[in-house]
C-alpha cells in the first residue's frame, strides 16, 4: 500500500509536503532512541511525539511516513522541517491503540 492509498482509506490529514511512497511495515514508539534502534526502512511510524527531532529520525531511518495520532497539534516548525526534507507527516484523530487495529484491519502487516 502507498501513503496515498493509506491517506484516502483512513482519512488522514497530510500536514507536510512530500512524495508518496510504498509503506513497508509499521513501527510504534514515542522515543526517538527506540525508533533509531528498531525501525526498518519503509516503516510507517505512529507516534504522539511532535518535537522536530522526529523529522531527522524519520529521515535517517528512511521511514515511509509519520502518523501523529490522537489528534495532537503539530508545531509549524516540525511541519516546515518535514516539508524541507520531503518527510510525510500525517495526522489522525484516533489514539495509537485504535489506529494500530485499523491498520491491521486494512491488511498492513508489521513487515
Amino acid at each position: 500500500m502507498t501513503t496515498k492509498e493509506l491517506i484516502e482509506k483512513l482519512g488522514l490529514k497530510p500536514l507536510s509536503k512530500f512524495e508518496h511512497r510504498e509503506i513497508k511495515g509499521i513501527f510504534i514508539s514515542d522515543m526517538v532512541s527506540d525508533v533509531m534502534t528498531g525501525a526498518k526502512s519503509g516503516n510507517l511510524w505512529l507516534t504522539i511525539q511532535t518535537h522536530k527531532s522526529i523529522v531527522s529520525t524519520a529521515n535517517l531511518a528512511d521511514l515511509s511516513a509519520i502518523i501523529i495520532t490522537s489528534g495532537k497539534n503539530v508545531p509549524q516548525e516540525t511541519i516546515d522541517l518535514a516539508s524541507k526534507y520531503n518527510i510525510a507527516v500525517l495526522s489522525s484523530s484516533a489514539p495509537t491503540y485504535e489506529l494500530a487495529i485499523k491498520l491491521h484491519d486494512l491488511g498492513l502487516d508489521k513487515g
Partner: protein
Amino acid sequence: MTIRIKIGIVKEALNATVLEGEVQLEETVEHIYASDLMSDVLAFGLPNSLLLTGLATKQAVISAHMAEFKGVVFLRGKCPKDGADIYARDKHLVLLSTKHDMYDSCLFISSALNEKHHESVGTVEDQTVGDIILKEDFTIGGRDFANAGMVSTEMKEILKKIGFPHELVRRVAISTYEGELNVIMHASRGKVQLLVSPKLIEVVIEDEGPGIPDIALAMQEGFTTATEEMRALGFGSGMGLPNIKRNTSDLNISSEVGKGTIVYMKFQVQEP
C-alpha cells in the same frame, strides 16, 4: 474505546512475564493506552487503563499510578531497574514485560478481546468527605530525578486516607506531579505546601530557580525548555503547565527571573 479485559488475559495474549502484581491478574482494565510520553498519560489517560510502553522507568509507573491505571506493560523485553517494582508493589499496580513491540501487542490484545467474553465487575464506592483541616510541607531537590514523584505520591496517599473523592484526588495528584517535575527539571530546590479544608484543597509550590520569563508562553501546549537529556527520560513534552491548568479550579503563577517561581493551585471540593 471502552473495553473489559482481565490483566491475566493480556498477560497470556502477550506471553508476558509478571514483574509485579501476580495477585492482581484478576483485575479488569477498561482502556489500553499505548504511549511512551508520560505527560500525555497524565493529561489524557483514563482510570482503569493498562499502559503499554517502551519507557521502562519508575516514572512510567508513577505516571500510571497518578492517572489511576491498573498496570503497565513494558515492551520489547524491557524491564525497569530503578525500583519501579517496589513502587508498583506498594501501589498495587501490575507490571508485565513482553518481548513484543507496541504494534504486535496492540494486535494481540485486540485478538484476545474478540475471542473472549469477560464478566463485568462491581465498582468501588467513594468515601464521604470528613471535616478535617490539615497542613503538610514537603521539599523537592533540584535535579533529583531519582525521587521525582515522591512528594505527589505522598500527597495522594494523604488525600485518599482523608477520603476525598477519587476524581479530585487524581486531579490534585496529577497537578502536583507536574509541578514537582518542573521544580526538579529547572530549579535548584523547592517546597510544596498542602492546605486542606473541607471544601478546598490548596497546593503551593515555591522554588528557587531561573523563573519563567514569559508565563503566557510557558502555558502553551508543546512549549518546553527541557533539555535533550530530560526529553530522553520522557519528560518535557511541554504539557506540564497546561495539564495543571486543566486539572485545577484556579491556577496562579508568579515568577521572578533569576529568583524563582510560585505556582498556586486551588481545587474546589464539589458535592457529588
